[in-house]
């Protein structure tokens, strides 16, 4: 479900197929192994890189596989299945928040619930303007947010009224509105144009040749609560001191 390719210094992760790209255990495992592959390639050849995450079809991702959770048979078994997905996805957010390179989400379709979280776990988000909404559906379905979802939203959506509309109003944001309210960075015509824009941005960012480890450390220092919520511990001052000295 997650296909990884590399175009020079840009890694492109594509959520393949025409469906809703629901996140179940297999999909999440596939995503994690792609991110691990990226990490090992850059460890072998340090330099400036960037990641673009995009999707085929009408959906970026519509969130967790609730149909699979509901098929468990009993309400408590269903709850357990959903909890397992919540627990499995948490390290994905951690992987992205600690990835040693800039990350760009090309939101090429609807992004809801965990799909919305996947998008905002990236440093930059560009979105197609011709269709698709960003939507936290949980309130409409009657599901509470996992703590780390809330921490991530608080980190990336600072405006309190926007945050309220996202979480307490279950508002469906068009790309234009998402841009106006600071949820995405820019809006582009079609899915193809959105991916092009993301690739251009990623190429530029990769060309800055940043030290990936330092980039990740600065990112974690910029968003410490979100990082703590997904179990990431920031490097201590002693470690940072050593890096500082090595760069002098």
């Amino acid at each position, binding site marked *: 479900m997650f296909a990884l390719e590399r175009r020079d210094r840009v890694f492109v992760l594509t959520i393949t197929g025409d469906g809703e790209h629901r996140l179940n255990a297999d999909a999440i495992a596939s995503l994690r192994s792609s991110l691990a592959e990226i990490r090992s390639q850059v460890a072998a050849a340090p330099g400036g890189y960037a990641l673009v995450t995009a999707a085929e079809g009408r959906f970026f991702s519509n969130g967790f596989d609730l149909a699979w959770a509901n098929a468990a048979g009993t309400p408590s078994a269903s709850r357990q299945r959903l909890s397992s997905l919540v627990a499995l996805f948490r390290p994905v957010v951690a992987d992205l928040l600690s990835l040693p390179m800039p990350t760009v989400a090309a939101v090429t379709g609807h992004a809801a619930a965990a799909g919305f979280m996947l998008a905002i776990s990236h440093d930059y988000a560009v979105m197609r303007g011709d269709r698709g909404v960003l939507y936290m559906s949980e309130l409409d379905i009657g599901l509470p947010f996992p703590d780390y979802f809330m921490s991530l939203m608080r980190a990336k959506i600072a405006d309190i009224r926007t945050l309220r509309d996202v979480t307490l109003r279950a508002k469906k944001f068009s790309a234009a509105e998402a841009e106006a309210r600071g949820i995405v960075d820019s809006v582009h015509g079609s899915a193809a144009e959105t991916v092009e824009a993301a690739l251009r941005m990623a190429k530029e960012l990769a060309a800055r040749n*940043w030290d990936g480890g330092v980039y990740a450390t600065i990112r974690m*220092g*910029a968003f*410490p609560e979100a990082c703590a919520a997904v179990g990431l511990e920031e490097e201590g001052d002693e470690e940072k001191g050593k*890096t*500082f000295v090595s*760069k002098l």
Partner: protein
Amino acid sequence: MCTLEKRGRVYLLTLTGTDEHRLNPMLLDAVRSALARVRSEAAASSDGGAALVTAAEGKFFSNGFDLAWARASPSLRPGLMTAALHRTLADLLSLPMPTIAAVTGHVSAAGCFLALSHDYVVMRADRGFFYMSEVDIGLPIVDSLMSVMRAKIPDPRTRRDVLLRGKKVTAAEAEARGIVDRAVVGAREAVEAAIAMGEELAARNWDGEVYASIRKGLFKEVCKGLGLEEASGEEAAAAAAAALTKQPSSKL
């Protein structure tokens, strides 16, 4: 390395010389001495409210840590520099009067922390960038200093562009995005605007200790990281009681 003068109710601290005003313990100690003088003169004065403006001569407000100085003794000097900056920022955050940075030239890296540790920032509009160069140089930022960024740049996109994109932000953009309060054309004009702002704030005749206490409460996380203790609940209550007895009943 720096001069201190008084213009009306405003203390004007100027980083002298046309160099980059790199922050090493020598310059930072000079700044701290000046701040100590401001504190003691203000305490002795019966003039009422005061304010501090920090400005700089030349093309640079400050271009950050003195890496060349640190390189000469890499096992000791980086720690000394960071500690000296911590103490300077702690002095600014506990200063018993409003503080305004007049960013009259380029400000980058650790210089940005110095500027943002003031209550207000006026930046020269016609030249100079606000630039967190750390990502470009590959230098990590210790959490105590990063907390200044987090406190003063709450918008996630701006924070990202400044810290993770190494954006060279012009004064106009810095003003639009809430990094600085005002962009003013001309170095002299920027300083004058900062002093005028200082006069206005000083004229409010605020109790300096109460001002400092409120500031420390507002920036609790930063102060904690810099080792500044907040006033305890008891101390705050005692201060409030003392203030109440001083107020004419019509004001309450």
